[in-house]
């Protein structure tokens, strides 16, 4: 039985209430940390655990925490990034909706470790009903003395507020998120300084993803060394994977890192195989920004090794033959899927979501969308493939924030692995989209 540390109790009736959550061992990490550990001990456990940021970048969390500046007399902030917007990703929403206290618990334990007394959960505006669930959980926690002054009778005090956004993918980038939290447009900041030195209101700030913060609780409970035993190599612990697309059982799965991709797609315990018995064509393994891989390369590395769900194995082969674990947004496509059209939906997304600050991104994403629209219209020429390649290359690495890469990589990967599909449309002057509702649903089901 694979181990679950984050969503093992989601099916327990009433688990979103404090009472039930506590009856199932909830808030043990707060008790343990606040009453038996020093803040630096908690940071040490997180370092030992090998936990890496679960939002997509995979940066070691303990290391990020250790960068937090601690000047005297200056407040520090902990901000939870719940702006989950990467296409294909819906794990944080699931966690917050089903077991909101997991996040609140992680916030308290993390804030204690960082010496923070004010914390915010920045949640995307569209998840309004989830914000409401979180608000209720926070209210319960205050009433039970788990938030507010002198938590559990200790010297430690913490306030936690939910802050609702209003629809902007870019606010998932941590400095854009901080700008937004300060009441401004979500324009990413130039770094350095990093938030650890000058973040919210110019004060030292740690920004962590929902799943990262929630993982701190089991790490404190079991100890960093124990946690590090789960997983494979430098990919320690468990990871929430959001599975969608042409599979039998879309949904959120908690896996132990190192699970073979093949088992994840075809295993009954996970995606349950391809819907309607179709063949697998391609997978976007870690959210829209990571390179798409054709079936053969997602199941096995270029060396013929089984591909595993881990930072290293998915990255094996670099961008030539590999991809990234990213946010764990796992989009599966069957043999009928047009890679060009799927790419078009991604590029339209990036064009819509570009904050407009840097010209290469603002203009480039629109240009790429226009070129791809020509393919969809059947008016593209063969040279447009080269043009598309050229444009994406001129965005990557030339912007303030990683949005530029996020927009460029999917284009590069689609051309790298599926160039023939682009050329075929250009040669035939015709685009046929066969991924249609009736075909998928077998009529009006």
């Amino acid at each position, binding site marked *: 039985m694979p181990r679950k540390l984050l969503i093992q109790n989601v099916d327990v009736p009433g688990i979103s209430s404090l009472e039930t959550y506590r009856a199932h061992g909830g808030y043990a990490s707060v008790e343990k940390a606040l009453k038996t550990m020093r803040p630096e001990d908690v940071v040490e456990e997180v370092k030992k655990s090998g936990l890496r940021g679960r939002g997509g970048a995979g940066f070691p969390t303990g290391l990020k925490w250790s960068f937090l500046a601690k000047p005297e007399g200056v407040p520090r902030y902990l901000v939870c990034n719940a702006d989950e917007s990467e*296409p294909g990703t819906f794990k944080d929403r699931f966690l917050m909706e089903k077991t909101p206290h997991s996040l609140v618990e992680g916030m308290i334990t993390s804030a204690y470790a960082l010496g923070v007394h004010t914390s915010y959960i920045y949640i995307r*505006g569209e*998840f309004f009903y989830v914000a409401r669930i979180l608000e209720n959980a926070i209210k319960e926690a205050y009433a039970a003395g788990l938030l507010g002054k002198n938590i559990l009778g200790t010297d430690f005090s913490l306030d936690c507020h939910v802050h609702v956004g*209003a629809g902007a993918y870019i606010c998932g980038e941590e400095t854009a998120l901080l700008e937004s939290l*300060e009441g401004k447009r979500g324009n990413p900041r130039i770094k350095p300084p990093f938030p650890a030195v000058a973040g919210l209101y110019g004060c030292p700030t740690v920004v962590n993803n929902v799943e990262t913060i929630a993982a701190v609780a089991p790490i404190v409970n079991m100890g960093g060394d124990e946690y590090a035993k789960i997983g494979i190599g430098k990919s320690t612990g468990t990871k929430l994977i959001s599975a969608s697309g042409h599979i039998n059982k879309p949904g959120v799965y908690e896996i132990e890192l190192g699970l073979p991709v093949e088992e994840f797609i075809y295993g009954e315990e996970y995606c349950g195989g391809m819907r309607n018995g179709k063949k697998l064509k391609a997978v976007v393994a870690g959210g829209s920004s990571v390179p798409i891989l054709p079936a053969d390369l997602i199941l096995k590395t270029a060396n013929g090794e089984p591909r595993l769900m881990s930072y290293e194995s998915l990255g094996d082969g670099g961008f030539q033959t590999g991809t990234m674990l990213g946010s764990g947004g796992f989009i599966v496509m069957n043999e009928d899927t047009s890679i060009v059209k799927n790419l078009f939906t*991604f590029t339209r997304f990036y064009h819509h979501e570009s904050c407009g600050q840097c010209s290469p991104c603002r203009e480039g994403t629109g240009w790429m969308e226009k070129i791809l629209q020509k393919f969809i219209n059947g008016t593209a020429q063969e040279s447009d493939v080269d043009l598309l390649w050229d444009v994406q290359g001129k965005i990557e690495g030339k912007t303030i924030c990683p949005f530029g890469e996020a927009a460029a990589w999917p284009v590069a990967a689609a051309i790298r692995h599926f160039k023939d599909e682009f050329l075929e449309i250009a040669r035939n002057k015709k685009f046929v989209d066969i991924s*249609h*509702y009736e075909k998928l649903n077998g009529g*009006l089901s």
Partner: protein
Amino acid sequence: MGAEIHGTQKFNESKRTEIKFSEEAMATAKLLMSNYPQGKEKSAIIPILHIAQAEFGGWLSPEAMDYVAEILNIRPIEVFEVASFYTMFHLKPVGKCVFEVCQTSSCWLNGAEDIVKHIEKKLGIRVGETTADGMFTLKVAECLGSCGTAPMLQCGASYHENLTFEKVDRLIADYRTENKQKNYTDLDYKNTL
């Protein structure tokens, strides 16, 4: 003072009186502002714009934005630049129900385009338009984080997932009959806090 900035006529005082939060909404706004350190109340701008949108008919007029500026004691341009940046703020009037159909990858893979076409046919409007009775506005949206339950649409605070044509028909009928008075774009902020 916001008049020149928004490029609209300077609003007159009589119209001004209509733009006012209910006591309840104002109390919520003040409570939200208290979530941030003293002097940093501007942080509450997005939450308060959500309230303004709900209070003033589902969209943000220049007057509504100026009113928010007044509450926060900031310049009107600071409100406008935020309101115009975020997708959830409507700067033009919308229907009582705004259907936002997700069209990004996973939803497209599961037939979102056909759902949009179906709604267009059913309501007799195109994407971006509002029905003549002012009941429905149809929009398309970028990834709403509901990929595992695709295709889907959002209406106000509600997610409607695993859509089929039949489900969409039912949804339209329900919104039409259930409560014509209710403004579904209202996220019901007041009951949250």
